[in-house]
């Protein structure tokens, strides 16, 4: 796959919006090793965003969009919340329909794309907040996993309802005082990563988005496993600095503090046996490729 599909007829090039010309000239479509390091040097699939200054979700969006292994054939599904303010800025097809139904939309979408494009890769990636994933949409989140739907579910976990102004959510920590939890949340943070494992997800990671290289790795793994084997789930801590009383520049530190080994976003992963095998095969192929490139370079220099 490449930029072939977005090429502009020469006669029309001049009248296309500059963003489109830029996309055609500098998109990382077709670049197999695209990743977070392209940010700032190649055309990004997201530029402006309409989130608060310093919002870790905006960082997460950038890292994820830079890391998708196959953006030219990836359709994203969102839900209502802060993410739905960002998706209109994103240069891959994305669907917002209702609040909480994202995994149902993705189930129908993935099956339709499979029917319509046999033999071709069409990745589907869901990206929604914790309210959408765990509260209002939990049924559809789990049922998609039970059915082994082949797409990736990403949850931006900010541990509350951010877009509506900081209400209690199922992924909020116990005891946290918030709107609708006036004396503190009464029950534990829902353990969705464990539930995801038991529900049939083949690749599950719980982490923060403090390290772009880590985000790149888990996104690529999650998409590859979903494409070949079955459902995958990433729970990424993207704190709402506004609602937890932090300043714009404090998001990164908040994530670093929360990923310490004893904290709730300490890196945690689960990989099923077939997924382990697939990832090992992919890693071996990449190694082979690198070795061949090295050899070629050496031959040229000799």
């Amino acid at each position, binding site marked *: 796959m490449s930029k072939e*599909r*977005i090429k502009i007829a020469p006669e029309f090039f001049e009248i296309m*919006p500059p*963003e*489109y010309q830029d*996309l055609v000239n500098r998109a990382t*479509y077709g670049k197999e090793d695209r990743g977070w390091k392209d940010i700032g040097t190649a055309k990004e699939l*997201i*530029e*402006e965003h*309409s989130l608060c200054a310093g919002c870790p979700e905006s960082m997460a969006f950038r890292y994820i969009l830079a890391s998708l292994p196959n953006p*030219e*054939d*990836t*359709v994203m*599904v969102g839900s209502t919340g802060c993410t*739905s*303010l*960002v*998706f*209109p*800025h*994103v*240069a*891959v*097809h*994305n*669907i*917002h*329909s*209702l609040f909480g*139904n994202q995994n*149902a*939309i*993705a*189930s*129908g*979408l*993935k*099956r*339709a*794309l*499979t*029917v*319509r*494009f046999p033999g071709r890769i*069409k990745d589907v990636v869901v990206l929604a907040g914790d309210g959408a994933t765990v509260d209002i949409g939990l*049924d*559809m989140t789990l*049922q998609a996993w039970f*059915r082994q739907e082949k797409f990736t579910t990403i949850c931006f976990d900010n541990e509350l309802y951010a877009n509506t102004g900081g209400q209690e959510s199922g992924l909020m920590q116990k005891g946290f005082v918030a709107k609708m939890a006036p004396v503190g949340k009464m029950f534990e943070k829902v353990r969705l990563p464990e539930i995801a494992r038991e529900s049939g997800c083949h690749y599950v990671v719980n982490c923060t988005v403090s390290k772009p290289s880590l985000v790149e790795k888990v996104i690529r793994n999650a998409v590859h496993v979903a494409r070949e084997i079955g459902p995958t789930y990433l729970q990424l801590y993207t704190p709402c600095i506004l609602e937890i009383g932090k300043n714009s520049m404090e998001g990164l530190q908040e994530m670093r503090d929360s990923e310490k080994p004893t904290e709730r976003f300490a890196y945690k992963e689960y990989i099923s046996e077939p997924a382990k095998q697939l990832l090992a095969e992919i890693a071996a192929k990449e190694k082979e490729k690198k070795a061949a490139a090295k050899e070629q370079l050496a031959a040229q220099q000799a």
Partner: protein
Amino acid sequence: METTSLIGTKNKKGQVITDVRHMMFEAPRTPSFYTGSEVIKEAIRRANVDVMIAYPITPQSEAAALIGELFAEGYIKEYFRGESEFAVMSQCAGAAFGGARVFTTTAGPGTMRAMENFPMWAGARLPIQMIVTCRGINSPLSIQPDTLEISYLIQTGMLVWHAETAQDFYDWILKGYMVSEEPDVHLPLALCCDGFFVTHTKDVVNLTPADMCLPPYDPYRSPVPCMDMECPPVRMMRDPFVMKSNYISYATHASWQQEVWAAVERSRKHTIAWLDGLIETENTDADILIVSSGTAVSQGREAIRLLADEGIRVGLVKIKTIRPWPWQEIREATKNAKHIIVPEFNVAGWLAREIKASIPDSDRVVAAPHVCGGMTMPPEIIVSEIKNVLGMRDHALAGRGS
């Protein structure tokens, strides 16, 4: 650019993709004795559907399961059972966003549970076809026939048609896709019938040849982009209007809602051509008219026959489409009527209200008889209502409180 036609070619099941006008209006028909559920299956066999998503609820469960058999036979490309009607309608949306021709069925409480999806379907311009086999939605639990749910569907921006017979159902399923998928319409269709009366009774239905099918859906005729990344987008907008509180945001939303309803209006011309008009009339010069939709029309026909035996002449207006609403046709058809009787299978009398809002001298409308909660509507109670209007004595029907 070179173009090729699919007409005359065969699909994987060996069915010939046929010009739909030929298939529906000229091709030979075979009379068959089927239940309404089986008729749904036979229509879908010929509809070239990509994706069907099912969920059990009486009285549509049989039809939904029969379409599973079509999937097993290879007539439908994808089929599964969702987890609830809300999820199913979202799964249908996902499949339609991805460019598939989508079919589903629901009823009563299922329609209500899924309701949030329907304005979204219309707003997203997804030409999904949903069969609604109407049943009660009240508490205490009722599974019996009742058309109240249609009154909720008619404000969603969907096309809403109300079939009287299994033959209507058969033809309208196939014709429905033709109207729904027109680029200037491109809206979902709720094809309603009265549960049990149509789904669970057998009737002679004239079927089109089984080796002919509709042309496949072409998602690139849609007025909105198909979400398949075949034509990747540039960033869609600089400033998302979704939840902004400013005039441009309001104007965008307002104009899009108006466009959805304008698309409902634009469906008239296609619907008139396919269904031979939005209404069907008999003897509209009579002083008394029965105006209704669904199986209440059939009961009206019987009542007209009974009254004719007594020398009372009554005309009939059968309303086929509730959205688009044929207000001009109804005004014209009822202009001579002194009494307009609107029998309905629901407690609210929503059809009578729609009619009252469409015609001059609306006190001509008699919003009766109403039956609900699964009650049948013997033609005698329509006769009784008409005699009452005419000031004639009539025998009370035992057990009906009249």
